[in-house]
């Protein structure tokens, strides 16, 4: 009995349980994005909005690169390199903010339509807006983890919040991997 209680209160057990919960959340959130993706193709199968191709390409590279630095931060803390962890998570945050500036600051202002102008503009702003909201929440999550990391909250043995932040951040990247071709590459520009 004592052993069972000890096992259930161990950090490893809690991490395993939290990880499962996190993945369930990720899967349920993925359905929201899948619904948006299906709507985009249901409304405009062979067409796409006339968007800035170079900007779309650049922000995609930025988000992919941010995922790489997040992976490095996660790897660093897993091996006890706390300096590397804080440095890499900071780079991830900066790249995440750059992505937001690219989408909300540049892409939205140069888009060939305004919000609610037609069905295509609605789907475009909903898809990019919903994704940007996730990026924003991811950046906030990373800032919290960064701050706690600087204070020495995480160690090689106990760092589940870092892993959770990394999984969430990579999930945002996976969503954009599908949104990028759907919005910028597939179909004829109208």
């Amino acid at each position, binding site marked *: 009995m004592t052993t069972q209680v000890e096992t259930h209160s161990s950090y490893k057990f809690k991490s395993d349980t939290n990880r499962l919960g996190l993945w369930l959340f990720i899967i349920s959130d993925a359905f929201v994005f899948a619904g948006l993706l299906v709507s985009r193709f249901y409304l405009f199968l062979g067409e796409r909005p006339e968007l800035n191709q170079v900007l779309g390409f650049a922000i995609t590279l930025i988000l992919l690169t941010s995922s790489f630095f997040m992976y490095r931060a996660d790897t660093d803390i897993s091996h006890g390199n706390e300096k590397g962890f804080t440095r890499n998570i900071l780079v991830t945050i900066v790249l995440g903010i750059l992505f937001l500036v690219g989408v909300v600051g540049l892409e939205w202002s140069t888009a060939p339509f305004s919000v609610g102008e037609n069905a295509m503009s609605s789907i475009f702003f909903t898809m990019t807006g919903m994704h940007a909201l996730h990026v924003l929440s991811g950046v906030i999550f990373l800032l919290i983890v960064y701050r706690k990391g600087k204070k020495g909250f995480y160690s090689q043995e106990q760092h589940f919040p870092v892993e959770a932040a990394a999984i969430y951040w990579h*999930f945002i990247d996976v969503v954009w991997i599908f949104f990028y*071709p759907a919005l910028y590459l597939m179909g004829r520009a109208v």
Partner: protein
Amino acid sequence: MEEKNIQEEQNGNGYKEDRNIGAAVIVLLLVLTVGEFFIGRIAIDWNWPLWGIAIFKAALIIYYFMHVTKLFGSSEEERL
């Protein structure tokens, strides 16, 4: 000097290998994205290769970066 020792200790624990995997994956992802960009520019009605590339890229991230396999095994110790 002390930092060097820590680095060596970490390297012996699969640290370098993990970092190399990350570097290889990001290079592959960037190359695939460049390919995707050009396919989108050249072949307008050619959607299936773009779907294929997107699925492959997503699989790389889910497997290597998100460590999905940790869901099915006992975790923390495995990575240490």
